[in-house]
């Protein structure tokens, strides 16, 4: 009997031992997995290149989105401001992937970049898929422009548009009651034809904005206005054609643009690149911000025109 008891105890001890081995085994596997997953990343420090991204249509939009986060041109200007104040930023690369946008928003960014240049911070533009019209306006402010061969750029010009729904209104027998203080108050009204006086007034605005566009490009590119006007008829062009027309300085990639920024700022080849911070919180609320901010009420822009002069490439 004593022997059987000892054998039973041995079996129980074996069971406990297996459990302990299993615990140790699982713990080792977890630690092994952790060591594979966690990599020690040293934060970038020292003098380097700051990155600013101009994505999508450029608009000032609201001062801040529904979640209190800055959006549109305002956030870009704030980012540029922050980089200008940062002592470790010796050069800036502006990654542009935009068909342009509103005149005021584009000019705000342009002026901010010019201020950076005055502070002797070299600014390099890197064009993505599209950097046309207002997108090019922003690039023109930079010291150096790098575009891909296939980048769509150019489209130098100003545009304002509104649909003419008069015939549609007539068809359905819809009439608008308009009470206005002056004859131009409903200048881009969609329910009637535009008068020649209104057209002339808007054309004057367009011409004025166009003149400013050409002047600013000439100033930014260090070219004569007459040279710019030759190609500033709204035409779009590829990166390689833009190089021939001296609208850009070189064809290349984003990495080339970063290398050029380092070269202009006399930085080492491996100097750090400071991307825009993307905390998970900002990512989530940024997405919501853009989603909420881009929502328009159906038909709101149709009946009540939004007065927009745009440096924009119409795709």
């Amino acid at each position, binding site marked *: 009997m*004593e022997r*059987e*008891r*000892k*054998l*039973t*105890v041995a*079996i*129980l001890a*074996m*069971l*406990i031992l*297996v*459990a302990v*081995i*299993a*615990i140790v*085994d*699982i*713990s080792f*596997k*977890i630690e092994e*997995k*952790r060591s594979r997953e966690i990599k020690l990343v040293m934060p970038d420090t020292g003098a380097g290149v700051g990155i600013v991204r101009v994505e999508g249509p450029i608009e000032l939009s609201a001062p801040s989105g529904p979640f209190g986060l800055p959006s549109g041109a305002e956030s870009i200007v704030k980012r540029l401001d922050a980089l200008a104040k940062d002592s470790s930023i010796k050069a800036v690369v502006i990654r542009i992937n935009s068909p342009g946008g509103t005149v005021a928003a584009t000019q705000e960014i342009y002026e901010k970049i010019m201020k950076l240049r005055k502070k002797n911070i070299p600014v390099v533009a890197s064009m993505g898929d599209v950097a046309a019209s207002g997108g090019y306006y922003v690039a023109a402010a930079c010291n150096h422009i790098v575009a891909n061969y296939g980048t769509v750029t150019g489209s130098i010009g100003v545009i304002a548009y509104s649909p003419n729904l008069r015939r549609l209104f007539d068809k359905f027998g819809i009439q608008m009651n308009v009470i206005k203080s002056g004859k131009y108050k409903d200048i881009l009204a969609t329910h009637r034809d535009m008068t020649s006086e209104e057209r002339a007034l808007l054309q004057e605005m367009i011409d004025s904005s166009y003149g400013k566009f050409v002047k600013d490009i000439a100033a930014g590119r260090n070219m004569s206005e007459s040279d710019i006007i030759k190609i500033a008829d709204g035409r779009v062009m590829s990166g390689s054609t833009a190089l021939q027309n001296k609208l850009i300085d070189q064809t290349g990639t984003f990495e080339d643009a970063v290398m050029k920024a380092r070269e202009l700022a006399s930085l080492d080849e491996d100097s750090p690149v400071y991307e825009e911070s993307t905390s998970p919180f900002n990512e989530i609320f940024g997405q919501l911000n853009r989603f909420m901010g881009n929502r328009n009420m159906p038909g709101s822009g149709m009946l009540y025109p939004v007065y927009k002069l745009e440096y924009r490439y119409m795709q």
Partner: protein
Amino acid sequence: MNLEKFRSLSWADFFLYSLIDPRALYRRVKQKDPDAFWISFIVPLFESLSGILLLSLLGRESAFFYYKISYGWILVFLFTFIKILIYTSLVDVAAQFSGLKGNIRELITLMNFSMLPALFVLPAAYPFIVGDFVPLFFYVLFSLACFIWHILIIVQSISEMHTIEFGRAFLIYLMPAVVTGIILLLTGIMLVINTAGYISTFM
């Protein structure tokens, strides 16, 4: 249980008889030397641990394992304890309905010891998990085998306890499961009917 009793290894008899002779287990439990009631809870305690370890070994290991092996062990043990308590009570009720004498304390002890085969699933399935040789299949296979072994132990113990034949003891053991199953099935059907009726009022 004092140290002398512990060193005599008389407590090991319960585990030994659980595996080799369930009828002798009941007779040994009845002797109350030592009292097997509290000792028997060692089995569900380690059965909970074994279950957690097996599922962790079969699943994806993460740092959550440390919570499972600490707080989780306590929770799983409590759940097992309640499960045993409820099912044993039902078996005892079923026995009393069959005209037998109720004996819940000894039945709980036997139920606890009858779970001993479940502890062998871990060492049996472990080589297949380490070797990554259809571990899930062998886990299910050994679990089923141990479950049948568990039923054999408890049914023989009940048979010995009430001095009844194996078949009747099996029915007593099975009755709560059948009744509970029927009740759950009817509850489920009624729940579906009620939910469908509730939803249809909005349509």
